[in-house]
């Protein structure tokens, strides 16, 4: 009876996961979808606590510890999630993802300690196999996520070890061999199990280490689907349908999402993982380009140009986030509006380092949503725009994506700012953006450069515009 209710609770939870995921993929319903999945999760958790029965329905205990664990986790998780800055959310996701991976690995460890292979029914020890997979994938996800977290926090630098690729391959091979050995030589509490744990943890580190910090969102999404698979293995172990549905759904949806994220940047997953250009980011210092030269504009001229325009479009990019210049940017925008200039923001879908990065950033500075225009909406209007200010964006306005078939970003849709009458570019020097390629736009006759840190430049611009 109560077991049936438990099963039905799991069914409800599974359904909320599907529905939640579906709703999460539409802007209008996303928030509600998250809520629904969350409620389903609550149902699954409480049903398990109150209704789960062991086969011999006896040695069930530890309620105190369980509730304590839930409380501790809830409080810490809540504080962390509430306190984190909008712009640090990807690393937060990575951290939580790592926790999930660790949880799956720990489950495998405890089950392994009890597992008696001599009790198995068929010649193939399915339970053992599942534990090995759960342990490995969970551990990789755990250590990989923590490295990704460290990178996004800026605490871990990108570093490609010599022969990193070959080394990783060798490790992967070692893991597989070890799993086969453990399956063949299946005895209770085989200590090799713990060697597998160590290898998996190291592999997670080595897997993420060489990938460029900017590619972390993609890596996190991939590790996310790993954790999903690890959770599903937990589900196999207990024949638990809620874990299975949740895990498998996240595993497959996460994989597709990873691919979609790569596509949005016009890259392939292998390209990201093998770090074709992800790992070679140049610093802030500019490198001058051949014989071409750029035109600069003074703060004063820029202020005048802006003040007397009818329409201005601001293109924010990664540099705006780096300089944390969103607030001052909004100030400039308001100042111009007071003077009767029409100001809007052109948001490229992959500007910054995570999807929605610019929206989050500008929302933080209270820029009203109506002012943020999506690429498809603003592109046709750019030809009627007097001035485009590009703040710390580079790849997303690179005309090579349209013109140069040999460019690595060829084919990516861009903001076609060269249609506007004037283009002002705020950046520190001539260094390249994420994709590491030159940007011809800077050399166009209608383009003027305003060198300097975005926050500094904007601050100066604001004072100047006030004077005009």
């Amino acid at each position: 009876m109560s077991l049936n209710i438990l099963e039905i609770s799991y069914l409800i939870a599974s359904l909320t996961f599907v529905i939640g995921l579906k709703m999460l993929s539409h802007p209008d319903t996303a928030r509600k979808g998250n809520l629904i999945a969350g409620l389903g999760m609550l149902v699954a958790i409480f049903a398990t606590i109150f209704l789960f029965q062991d086969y011999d329905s006896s040695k069930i205990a530890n309620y105190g510890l369980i509730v304590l664990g839930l409380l501790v986790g809830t409080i810490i998780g809540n504080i962390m999630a509430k306190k984190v800055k909008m712009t640090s959310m990807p690393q937060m996701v990575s951290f939580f993802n790592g926790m999930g991976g660790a949880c799956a690995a720990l489950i495998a460890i405890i089950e392994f300690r009890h597992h008696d292979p001599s009790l198995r029914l068929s010649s193939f020890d399915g339970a053992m196999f599942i534990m090995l997979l759960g342990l490995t994938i969970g551990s990789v996800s755990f250590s990989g996520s923590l490295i990704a977290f460290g990178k996004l926090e800026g605490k871990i630098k990108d570093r490609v070890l010599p022969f990193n690729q070959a080394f990783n391959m060798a490790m992967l091979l070692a893991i597989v061999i070890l799993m086969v050995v453990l399956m063949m030589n299946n005895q209770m509490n085989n200590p090799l199990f713990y060697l597998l744990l160590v290898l998996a943890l190291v592999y997670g580190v080595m897997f993420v280490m060489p990938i460029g910090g900017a590619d972390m969102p993609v890596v996190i999404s991939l590790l996310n689907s790993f954790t999903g698979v690890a959770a599903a293995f937990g589900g196999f172990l207990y024949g638990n349908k809620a874990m299975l549905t949740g895990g498998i759904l996240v595993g497959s949806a996460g994989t597709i999402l990873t691919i979609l994220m790569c596509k949005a940047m016009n890259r392939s997953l292998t390209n990201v993982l093998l770090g074709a250009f992800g790992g070679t980011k140049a610093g802030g210092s500019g490198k001058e380009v051949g014989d071409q030269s750029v035109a600069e504009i003074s703060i004063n001229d820029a202020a005048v140009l802006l003040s007397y325009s009818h329409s201005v479009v601001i293109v924010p990019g990664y540099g705006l986030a780096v300089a944390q210049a969103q607030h001052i940017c909004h100030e400039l925008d308001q100042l111009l509006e007071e003077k009767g200039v029409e100001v809007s923001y052109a948001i490229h879908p992959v500007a910054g380092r995570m999807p929605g990065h610019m929206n989050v950033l500008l929302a933080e500075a209270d820029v009203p949503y109506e002012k943020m225009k999506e690429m498809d909406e603003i592109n046709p209007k750019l030809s009627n725009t007097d001035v485009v200010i590009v703040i710390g964006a580079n790849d997303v306005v690179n005309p090579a994506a349209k013109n140069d078939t040999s460019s690595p970003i060829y084919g990516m849709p861009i903001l076609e700012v060269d249609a506007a009458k004037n283009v002002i570019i705020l950046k520190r020097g001539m260094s390249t953006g994420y994709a590491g390629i030159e940007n011809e736009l800077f050399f166009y006759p209608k383009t003027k450069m305003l060198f300097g840190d975005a926050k500094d430049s904007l601050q100066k611009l604001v004072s100047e515009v006030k004077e005009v």
Partner: protein
Amino acid sequence: MENILSFIGDNMDMIYFLILAVLLGVEVISKVPAILHTPLMSGANAIHGVVIVGAIIVMLQASPDDYVAQAIGFTAVVMGTLNVVGGFVVTDRMLEMFKKKPTIKK
């Protein structure tokens, strides 16, 4: 071969379940706008927090005098809860920014 065949045969229900769930996962999100990539990732992250259910089961089954199991299990429960609670709260915060805009075009 014989072995694998019979393993497959015995677990047919599971295999169907698996395949259908995988396909459903793929179909369900196959048309998501770029701006939702991050919240969707975060929401999915929260959903795999369902692994907490496994941690609870482990704890329920751990015998009261197996302190090692209890310690590991407790850690697992805390970590799983972090995944769930943190995941859903972060996602909700991310999605808060959508609320002001009445309709969002693809």
